[in-house]
């Protein structure tokens, strides 16, 4: 393996590793922020209806899971709390099909399916680096000689 080829392999592998780690961190941050946003919506909704007689919104954890699952499964935006002060009630809309008369907020310019793009690109680059290294490998390296 020539020195230039080894340098190319190292650079490609480094870029791939950086993309994989950075993309994984981005996915984790997105998941945490989505959960935090849903948690805020659910808390506000449950706290509001706790003071209203005759309304029961159900278990807090179940509602949180439902909102997050719908948001991630439909590749939708974050859950949002829509307030209609004239009618004196709060409605939580989430997902791509949150409601007929509710608007779909778009709070971030990416979706769950696009946020994994860095991880995919990094994986492809890492596999490419391994293939290039495999193409330059020879059994002479097993003897202990310098492959360069």
């Amino acid at each position, binding site marked *: 393996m020539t020195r230039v080829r080894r340098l190319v392999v190292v650079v490609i592998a480094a870029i791939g590793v950086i993309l994989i780690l950075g993309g994984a961190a981005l996915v984790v941050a997105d998941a*945490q922020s989505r959960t935090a946003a849903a948690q805020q919506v659910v808390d506000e909704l449950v706290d509001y209806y706790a003071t209203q007689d005759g309304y029961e919104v*159900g278990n807090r954890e179940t509602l*949180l899971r439902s909102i997050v699952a719908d948001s991630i499964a439909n590749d939708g935006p974050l859950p949002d709390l829509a307030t209609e002060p004239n009618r004196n009630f709060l409605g939580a809309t989430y997902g791509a099909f949150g409601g007929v008369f509710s608007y779909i907020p778009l709070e971030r310019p990416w979706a769950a399916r696009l946020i*994994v793009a860095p991880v995919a690109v990094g*994986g492809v680059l890492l596999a490419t680096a391994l293939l290039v290294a495999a193409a330059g490998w020879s059994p002479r390296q097993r003897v202990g000689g310098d492959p360069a």
Partner: protein
Amino acid sequence: MAESQGLDPRHDPIYQRGYDPAVHGGEAPADGAAPSRRSRARRSSDEDLFAPPQPDGTEGPRARTAGPRGATAPRDAESPRVSMPEWSPFGELERDGGADERDTSATHDAKAEPMVVVGGGSSGSDARPGPPPAAASSVAPWRNPYLIGLVAGGAVLALVGFQMFRSALETIYVDFAQSGMIFGGEQSSEEAPDPVAELVSMQIGWSLGPVLFVLGIAAILAVIVFVAVRWRPASTAEQDPPLGGAVGRESPASHP
């Protein structure tokens, strides 16, 4: 190139692709009658290339230099003939037309060493000491550590991605059914784990699971394509030296 129409008259035909001794003539000049167009350095290089075997049984200094794919180099300086492999398009021509020529020189080559396969690589001009590219390509793929790592990593990625996505689906749907939410039953959230951590892991599995699965499958397919591109006919592979022999010949101890 003129590999199919003819050979470049400016250079020695034996070093050009498509050279056939039966067609273009491969008889070497007698000793002491060097071709006039050959320089001294070229003559020295030829003598080095067709040097007789060493007394310890090893090959000459440049006998293992990569040549045209599948070509064989003679070890006898007096009969530098290149024999084509069986799968070569010139192989049949040589077997038919070159029979008489070999018969006439049979007594002359009786004491000659058997032909040694030295070629097969793509870089025919590579004169570095070391195994020819054919040796690396003829090595079994499961001996290449990079390919092993790629296959193993691909399998692990595929399994992990599948399991992550399956776990996310269970978190989304199965837990709902078991808790009775889907079917309108009572919800039991007392024994449920931390919902935030569970939801974060569910989203990570939902997002990364399919990507990791696809990457793993793609890595395995890439290795298959890599091995398929480097695959050669069995007849050629049989002529190549095995890995152990190649390594043994290339060890510094064999060639001081």
